[in-house]
C-alpha cells in the first residue's frame, strides 16, 4: 500500500481545464491511499467562488465546452467525490482572499480552509508537487 505518500497540487490558473485535470489526478491519488493537498491561488480562486460555480461562470476552452455539453462531472463534483472516498484537503490562498475581500463562506463547500504560504509549504514538505 502507498500509505504516507503525499501529493501537493497547486492551481493558480483560472482556466477551467486546469482545475478539471487537477481534480481527476487528485481523485485517483486520494483513492489510492495518497494524502492529497490542493492549494488554490491567484486567478484560480474565481473558480471556487460559490457565485461563479452556481452560474457555471468559468473561463475555459474547447474541452471545457465539451465537458459542459456532454454533461460530464465538473471539477468540483470530482473533488467532492474524492473527499468522500479518500484523503483530500483543499485550501485557498489567504492572500488572494484578502485582496478580493472574500470570506470562507463565499467559497464552495469543498474548500476546507484558507491557508498562508508558510503553512502550505509545511504541507508540501516531502510531497510530490504538481502545478497548474
Amino acid at each position, binding site marked *: *500500500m*502507498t500509505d504516507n505518500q503525499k501529493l501537493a497540487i497547486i492551481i493558480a490558473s483560472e482556466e477551467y481545464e486546469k482545475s478539471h485535470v487537477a481534480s*481527476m489526478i487528485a*481523485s*485517483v491519488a486520494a*483513492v*489510492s*491511499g495518497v494524502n492529497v493537498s490542493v492549494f488554490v491561488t491567484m486567478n484560480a480562486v474565481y473558480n471556487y467562488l460559490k457565485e461563479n460555480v452556481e452560474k457555471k461562470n468559468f473561463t475555459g476552452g474547447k474541452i471545457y465546452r465539451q465537458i459542459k455539453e*456532454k454533461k*460530464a*462531472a465538473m471539477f468540483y463534483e*470530482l473533488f467532492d*467525490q*474524492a473527499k468522500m*472516498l479518500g484523503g483530500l484537503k483543499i485550501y485557498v490562498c489567504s492572500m488572494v482572499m484578502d485582496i478580493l475581500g472574500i470570506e470562507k463562506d463565499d467559497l464552495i463547500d469543498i474548500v476546507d480552509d484558507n491557508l498562508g504560504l508558510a503553512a502550505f509549504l509545511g504541507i508540501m514538505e516531502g510531497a510530490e508537487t504538481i502545478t497548474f
Partner: protein
Amino acid sequence: MADVNLKDVKPTITVDARGTYCPGPLMELIKEMRQQPVGSIIELISGDAGSAKDVPEWLNKVHQEFMGVIEETGYWRIFSKKIKEM
C-alpha cells in the same frame, strides 16, 4: 482461455458506469467495493477505454484482486474481487 472462464463468473454485483467519463467508472467501482463484503466479485461495465488499464493498476495498488476483462463492442466488462477490507 482466461476469457472463457471469466464468462462463467457470476458477479456478486454489476456496476454499469457507462455514460460516466474517466475517472468516473473507477470511482463507481471503489464506492461499490467499499460497501460489499470481502469475497464479493464486482463486475464493472465501462464505456471508457482507459478503464481496462486503469482498474487493474488501481487494484494492484490497493491489493485487491483483478480477475480480468472482457472486451465487448463499445464497452468493457471488468471483473474484480474484494479480497480484504478497505
